[in-house]
């Protein structure tokens, strides 16, 4: 039966080629546009650390004298001041905690005449590596003692290691950062979490990766160059060491709800304790964001991209309404044929199935075209200069999703026309002719 209906459907589609092509193109365009944008949003809102993100939290304590609205900088207090970061770090209330900041340095290998490389990376504290599960090809991170000693140590990405030392890891060798010698103690495996959640993510969270990591306190000591926003309130300049300038990111690892509530309590106590010293004038309101909530709070998926998704879905909606209308017109035009079939004994369900299959065939063809259009769309996204561009490609689940959307969509679109078609009475149509 199914094969027969399929044959009928193909015959019917062949009979009116222009109409068929029109419908397939319509489904294809709608599906292609939506799948392009759904894929882009999907890859952008992916979990950067799937195994660990459930245990990673970002504490938010607001040292600003008054709430900041849209006329000032709404994200001014997302970062921590150096004294607060150091206090939280030394209190050590969580199983793991690290402070960090964006970094830019010029770096030389040992060779005397080598051109310096300008690289971006992060200044971090010891727990960074274990907390985020940073994989090392050789060596490893540093210890809390190294942090306190302001040790001159550095961990390199495998790419930077290759540029400086060739294929073998340069563990134990020295590189020159600014005017100081640093000992290489670790070489990372490929590690590029996207978005780069631990960075100061305002606006540019994608397409970056770090070439090196070195201890935060050492960087402060040597006055190396920092990257990222620095927001200050009150007076007395914008020195990084003051308790009025926020610029550090801070992450803690909390393994269970008990630890989470204990840490919340600790943050509230800290806030009150600071109020006793005349700081943190706003009412006590610490927050602890889970990694994925933090990314949502920071609007990691740009507004433009979300808007494009809505546009694509709106377009799909119009295409689908279009398909419903066209299928309805097509099916009702064949009222004669349906009447005859019904008069010859076909049941309503059979007529319904026949036209349902015809809609599904349009869906499959449209889905194939839509897939091609989506691949083309994603290719054009990859040509864009944005950081997220390189991520825009489909995985298997998105591929399946495209197909399901196309077939599901057109079967749904075919429901109403098929239902109308199967309600055509057997005799009346015959009588008219």
């Amino acid at each position, binding site marked *: 039966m199914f094969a027969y209906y399929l044959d009928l459907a193909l015959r019917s589609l062949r009979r009116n080629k222009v109409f068929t092509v029109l419908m397939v193109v319509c489904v294809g365009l709608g599906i292609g546009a939506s799948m392009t944008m759904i894929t882009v949003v999907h890859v952008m809102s992916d979990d950067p650390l799937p195994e660990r993100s459930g245990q990673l939290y970002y504490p938010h304590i607001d040292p600003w004298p008054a709430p900041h609205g849209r006329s*000032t*900088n709404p994200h001014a207090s997302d970062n921590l001041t150096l004294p607060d970061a150091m206090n939280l770090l030394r209190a050590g209330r969580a199983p793991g905690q690290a402070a960090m900041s964006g970094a830019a340095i010029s770096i030389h290998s040992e060779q005397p005449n080598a051109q*310096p490389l300008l690289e971006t990376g992060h200044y971090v504290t010891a727990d960074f590596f274990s907390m985020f599960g940073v994989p090392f090809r050789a060596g490893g991170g540093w210890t809390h003692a190294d942090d306190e000693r302001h040790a001159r140590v550095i961990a390199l990405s495998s790419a930077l290691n290759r540029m400086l030392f060739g294929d073998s890891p340069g563990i134990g060798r020295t590189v020159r950062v600014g005017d100081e010698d640093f000992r290489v103690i670790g070489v990372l495996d490929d590690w590029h979490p996207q978005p780069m959640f631990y960075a100061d993510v305002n606006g540019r969270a994608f397409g970056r990766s770090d070439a090196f990591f070195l201890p935060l306190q050492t960087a402060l000591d040597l006055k190396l160059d920092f990257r990222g926003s620095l927001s200050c*309130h009150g007076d007395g300049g914008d*020195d990084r060491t003051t308790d009025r300038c926020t610029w550090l990111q801070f992450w803690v690892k909390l393994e269970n709800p008990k630890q989470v509530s204990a840490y919340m309590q600790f943050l509230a106590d800290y806030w009150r304790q600071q109020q006793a010293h005349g700081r943190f004038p706003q009412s006590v309101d610490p927050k602890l964001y889970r990694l994925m909530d933090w990314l949502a709070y920071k609007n990691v998926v740009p*507004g433009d991209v979300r808007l494009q998704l809505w546009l694509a879905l709106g377009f799909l909606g119009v295409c689908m*309404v*279009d398909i419903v209308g066209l299928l309805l017109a097509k099916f009702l*035009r064949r009222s004669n044929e349906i009447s005859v079939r019904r008069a010859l004994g076909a049941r309503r369900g059979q007529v319904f199935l026949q036209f349902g299959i015809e809609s599904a065939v349009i869906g499959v063809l449209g889905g194939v075209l839509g897939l091609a259009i989506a691949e083309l769309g994603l290719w054009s996204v990859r040509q*864009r200069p944005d950081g997220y561009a390189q991520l825009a490609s489909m995985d298997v689940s998105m591929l399946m999703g495209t197909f399901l959307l196309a077939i599901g969509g057109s079967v749904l679109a075919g429901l109403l026309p098929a239902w109308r078609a199967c309600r055509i009475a057997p005799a009346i149509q015959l009588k008219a002719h």
Partner: protein
Amino acid sequence: MEIRPIVSSLRRHKITAWLLIIEMALTCAIVCNAVFLISQRLDRMNIVSGVVEHELVEIKVADVGLHPDAKARVEADLAALRRIAGVTQVGVASQLPLGNSSSNNGIMLDPKQKMATINATMYQGQNLLQALGTQLVAGRNLGDGDYRDFDSVMKAAADGDPNDARMPKVVVLTQTMADRLWPGQSALGKQIYLGPVPITVVGVVAHLVRPNNFSLGSEYSMALPVRLTGEGDSSYVIRTAPSERQRALKVALAALKKLDPKRVVLQKRTWDEIRESYFQNDHAMAGLLVAVCVALLVVTALGIVGLASFWVAQRRRQIGVRRALGATRADILHYFQTENFLLATIGIAIGMVLAFGINLFLMKHYELPRLPVAYFPVGAVALWVIGQLAVLGPALRAAAVPPVVATRSV
């Protein structure tokens, strides 16, 4: 044209008629909002920068390691750049208009204020306004005597005396900022406070756009007389004739390399490139929106063609009868045109409400302004035109149906 027969015939095709109406309503609503979004982007992209856009070149170099003689090096660099033939001005910039990296400050009119009045961006660097070619509308530009060294300003700030002589004392700001701070008054001689530090306004420029953060006020910009000696993000700004830019850039790079072959060039570009890269996303978004509008209108038109063709085919007999009873070709043509106009009008009416709803949604989630009433007719006209164009083919085919069809049995 009599409307009643059209309405009663549509009543018998309720579902198809409503589908067409819904499709046109959706298209109308999306097109209204999309056109509005496009115009917003175009407005943004056409922002007045206030600088001599086609005459500027930026070069940013980085020193490797610390240099105690930074001040002398910058002076030597500037002297070398000034000597280049065709270069009219050379300046140092802590940040550039539309450069997408900025230093911003809360501005207060009273040092005891708890919250800043506005947030303004702070341009610093020797001879910067002259190099950028901003247009002075009142007072004077920053002069040599006004400038303070960056590191001594930082030391003074750390010492905490707001009246320290090492602090800059004067500022030049934009007309927009002056009008916001002192509406209806002259800004010259007025004081602003950066934290506790009092600074006197000595000049007002017509325009100077921010490097980014337009939502804080795209022209809340000021220039402070601070002499930079290679700190952080600072770069050299060279002003020359538009046709000379590429040559000047090349010569300038060579001159800087000659002074110190070991340093690294981080940035070399014309200001036109800065503007282009700043608005890159807006450009792409506007293009995409245009494409979506076109695609929507095409799909809608195809839908109209499809349904109208179906109706025409279905009514061949009735058309034949009408023709046999004396209706002219024009009557038949007008029948289908009026029918489409009627459907389009209902669709547009619903579309307007929908457009308003979509706009409310966008206002809530994307900080867009309210859709001006002027945009509603855009969608309406687009739909009417598309509808009439799409129905023309099937309607002409209907008009061509000969009266003799009435006498045939099928």
